[in-house]
């Protein structure tokens, strides 16, 4: 087992307060290991982005973290809880320890500043003593690393293509060499060729620089291909978490099976594509028991009664994966 870098323990995120609150993320337990790409998949509104913003405390009001811990293990020193940091510590923690590439990152660049200004700005904020010459050198190096010619340093964002802007954003996220990079659907706006290029580059960079990635997307096929482990979210909970290959080969949770059944395989016999009937649950009025049971093709007696706990299933590879489903008896709960 590799050593963990980020441990999420029973994270709960609400929108709103009191009895008006909508519980968008509930009791999520997740561990990100060093050098790992952890995929987070699920339908729209399943809480993927809320989870990522909640653990970095970036949610805008009325979002609140209503409970849980996010234990970060720095390269040197004792692990600490990100949710307990003071504002000043949090500012220092951000970007240098965890960086985030936002949804629609292409529009996150300020159109009136050169990309060199925007790249060096981060360095200036986190290391004011650095000379402007070395800042520039670092920015050039970063651009080269993400596959953009350093002579584009003085370009404005509108002079770059969408894919290049995305690369700039990724380079900007990596410029302080964080241990954890959270990517929230970073390639959704790009065409598949560009998606693949950027992801391949990301994987290569990860091998070279050794950071870990939490990759959020609703494109499960993308995750199967290049992530190490995949966590499937539904209705604010993690319903299944497994190594990518294991999840693809035999998924335990009917929801994961439904997601996997909704895109075509490249090889093998042709099969009928099946979607998941119904629509994601209303977070204001969650079904009782397992929140997936009204849509589940394998629903049976206990499903509506109680919420199944996420735990190690009773399968041969049970030690490496976890699932929350009444169909799969759990040996030991996770978290």
């Amino acid at each position, binding site marked *: 087992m590799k050593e963990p870098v980020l441990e999420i323990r*029973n994270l*709960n995120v609400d929108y709103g*307060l009191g009895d*008006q609150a909508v*519980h968008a993320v*509930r*009791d999520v337990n997740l561990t990100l290991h060093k050098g790992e790409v952890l995929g987070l998949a699920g339908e729209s509104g399943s809480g993927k982005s809320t989870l990522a913003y*909640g653990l970095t*405390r*970036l*949610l*805008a*009001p*009325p979002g*609140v*973290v*209503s*409970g*849980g*811990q996010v234990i970060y293990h720095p390269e040197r020193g004792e692990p600490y809880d990100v949710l*307990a940091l003071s504002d000043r510590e949090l500012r220092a923690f951000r970007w240098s320890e965890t960086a985030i590439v936002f949804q629609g990152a292409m529009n996150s660049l300020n159109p009136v500043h050169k990309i060199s200004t925007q790249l060096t700005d981060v360095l200036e904020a986190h290391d004011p003593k650095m000379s402007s010459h070395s800042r520039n050198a670092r920015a050039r190096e970063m651009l080269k690393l993400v596959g953009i010619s350093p002579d584009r340093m003085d370009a404005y964002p509108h002079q770059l293509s969408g894919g290049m802007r995305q690369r700039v954003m990724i380079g900007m996220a990596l410029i302080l060499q964080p241990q954890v990079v959270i990517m929230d659907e970073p390639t959704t706006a790009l065409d598949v060729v560009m998606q693949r290029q950027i992801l391949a580059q990301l994987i290569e960079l990860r091998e070279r620089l050794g950071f870990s990635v939490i990759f959020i997307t609703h494109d499960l096929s993308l995750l199967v291909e290049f992530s190490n482990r995949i966590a499937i979210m539904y209705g604010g909970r993690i319903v299944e978490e497994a190594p990518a290959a294991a999840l693809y080969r035999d998924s335990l949770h*009917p929801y994961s*099976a439904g997601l996997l*059944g*909704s*895109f075509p395989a490249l090889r093998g016999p042709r*099969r009928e594509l*099946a*979607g998941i*009937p*119904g*629509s994601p*649950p209303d977070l*204001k*009025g969650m*079904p*009782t028991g397992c929140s997936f*049971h*009204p*849509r*589940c*093709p*394998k*629903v*049976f*007696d*206990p499903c*509506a009664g*109680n*919420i*199944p*706990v996420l*735990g190690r299933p009773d399968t041969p590879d049970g030690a490496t994966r976890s699932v929350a489903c*009444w*169909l*799969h*008896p*759990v040996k030991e*709960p996770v*978290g």
Partner: protein
Amino acid sequence: MTIPTSSVEQVIPGQGAMAQPEEVRPGKAKRRRFRFVANAKAATGLVVLGIYILFAIIGPWVAPYDPDAQSDDLVAPPSSAHWFGTTHLGQDVLSQILVGTRGVMVVGLTAGVVATVFSVLIGVTAGYLGGTWDDILSVLSNVFLVIPALPLIIIVASTINNAGSTIVALVIGLTSWAWGARVLRAQTLSLRGRDYVEAARATGEKTWRILFFEILPNLTAIIASGFVGTVIFAVTSEITLAFIGIGSISNWNWGEILFWAQSQQALAQGAWWWFVPAGLAIAFLGTALSLINFGIDEFVSPRLRSAGKTKVKTVAGRTVRMRVGFTPVLDNSAAPHTHATPVPAINPNGATPVRRKEATP
């Protein structure tokens, strides 16, 4: 790869109702009526403005004295007989303010309406029609922009013998619409290129319909702030006119009070009750109108609406503020919030899946 939109009932008969349990919904989700008044700023502004309008109507009747009536209490400080004190002629200041309210309100609101109507007509037309019309109307509003309003009002008011408040209101209204027209023209120019306006045009909507149903609703905030701004401007203009001694002497208004206070050197005499009430009346009217303006802004543009409560109490008892970038953490313990039940390793009761279909990969 589209997911069929079949309802839950079709898939699992009898279980669909469980998907959306009605009773779980919080009762407050109902659409609230009088949402505008529910806004604290707007409510405060409306209440204060309502008091002003009330006194504008009933002021002359509830005034304890005739504002012109002289008495023997000269420059007397506030007392039970004269709540706001008296002037150098022994006139009751409270009565003067109450009687003066009507003139101020009439001039302010009339001028505001006149200027708003003109600015909407000219600004929106110029912005939407473009071309020659835009040029002509822009030149017109530019000319009116450079006309100095106050000197013009002074000239007009002193030329017309015994100019009443209506004349003053019309002059103020007719000279102060140009700024609003420019702002509205610019905003209309930006709106007319938006996709939904283009779409409306493409589907063959009539020009008037596009103007009234597509563009005007999006200009509400600007129109409202223009109206409120003009009312404040008109009120101060009228008071200024009266203060410098132009306008009819027969009509009392707050400027008139300030004029006499100034000419009789109330400040040097220490007669603060002479000018402070009138000044505060002006200030509160302006505040009320601004508060209404904020309320309108938040009402028509939901993005400006502040999200109700911003202070949160944590489990530890500390109060934290909701801020962008620093999501409050209510509870920092790792205890689970919901009660998930472990799936028993040995299923009791031999629970076999009742509706377990074969997987359809």
